[in-house]
């Protein structure tokens, strides 16, 4: 299992992601954004969190033009698996690889805390080790996590089982921290090979640090 992790200027979660995937037994490589190709033995490409290009203009708006993104699009088009976490999710929506957009949090605050999430669809490689309606405890840390999609787009997401996770309380009751449409925390593309979420599963890998619920999520990619 080879995991390639993208690094833009301002990315700051690439080493957390590397640590998490190494712990699960993967070979990892951090790929600088100037690269014009994705290593051919890549089984999973991670677009890690942080503040690519200082969030200038909009979160993810400038990163989408980095040299590596052309290769990422090609990789995804050929069925390669891509996971965008936090800023990575923003980059993937900006690049058009995932539907919707991420707006400023409704209460305008930067949110940094553990939050519960409910599994909405698990018929995909990312969440297949979890059950529908399972509640996991995963940290969030974002300013622009307010997922927006218009009514037609939303209908399509549900019709294709593309809604992955929603924000809830510990009992699975909706609790929306940032104003996201339908409390949505993560989605995938129609083909179910590109995934994006605002919460950080790579920061929930050991009980000692508050939760190891991220293990089941990231492990899904290993049994492809």
């Amino acid at each position, binding site marked *: 299992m080879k995991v390639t992790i993208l690094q833009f200027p301002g990315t700051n979660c690439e080493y957390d992601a590397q640590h998490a995937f190494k712990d699960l037994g993967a070979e990892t490589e951090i790929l600088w954004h100037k690269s014009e190709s994705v290593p051919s033995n890549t089984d999973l490409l991670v677009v890690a969190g942080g503040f690519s290009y200082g969030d200038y203009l909009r979160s993810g708006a400038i990163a989408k*033009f980095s040299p590596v993104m052309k290769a990422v699009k090609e990789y995804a088009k050929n069925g390669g698996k891509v996971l965008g976490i936090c800023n990575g999710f923003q980059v993937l929506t900006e690049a058009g690889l995932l539907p*919707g957009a991420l707006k*400023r949090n*409704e*209460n305008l605050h930067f949110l940094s805390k553990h939050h519960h999430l409910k599994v909405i669809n698990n018929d995909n490689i990312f969440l297949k080790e979890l059950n529908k309606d399972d509640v996991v405890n995963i940290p969030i840390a974002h300013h622009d996590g*307010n997922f*927006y999609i*218009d009514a037609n787009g939303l209908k399509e997401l549900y019709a294709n089982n593309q809604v992955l996770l929603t924000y809830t309380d510990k009992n699975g009751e909706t609790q929306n921290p940032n*104003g996201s449409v339908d409390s949505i925390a993560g989605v995938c593309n129609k083909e179910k090979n590109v995934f994006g979420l605002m919460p950080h599963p790579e920061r929930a890998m050991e009980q000692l640090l508050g939760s190891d619920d991220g293990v089941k999520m990231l492990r899904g990619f290993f049994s492809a």
Partner: protein
Amino acid sequence: MKVIVNVFLKAGVLDSQGKAVHHALNSLHFNGVSDVRVGKQIVLNLDEEDEGKAREEVARMCEDLLANTVIEDYEIELIK
């Protein structure tokens, strides 16, 4: 040619910053304000002198980078 691009959230997309500013203005007793939108202004200096071409080029810039048309609208103003 100088070009001003204004980018705002689309009508119907909640503008939390506009709402917060509106609320703050009301608490400062500016009670005659019925709506506030907060957006971005981007000022460009172009070599292009032809208005039509300039407008077309800036529209492409907006579609590609300056605005995210999933959530934002843009206005282009040419200044001679």
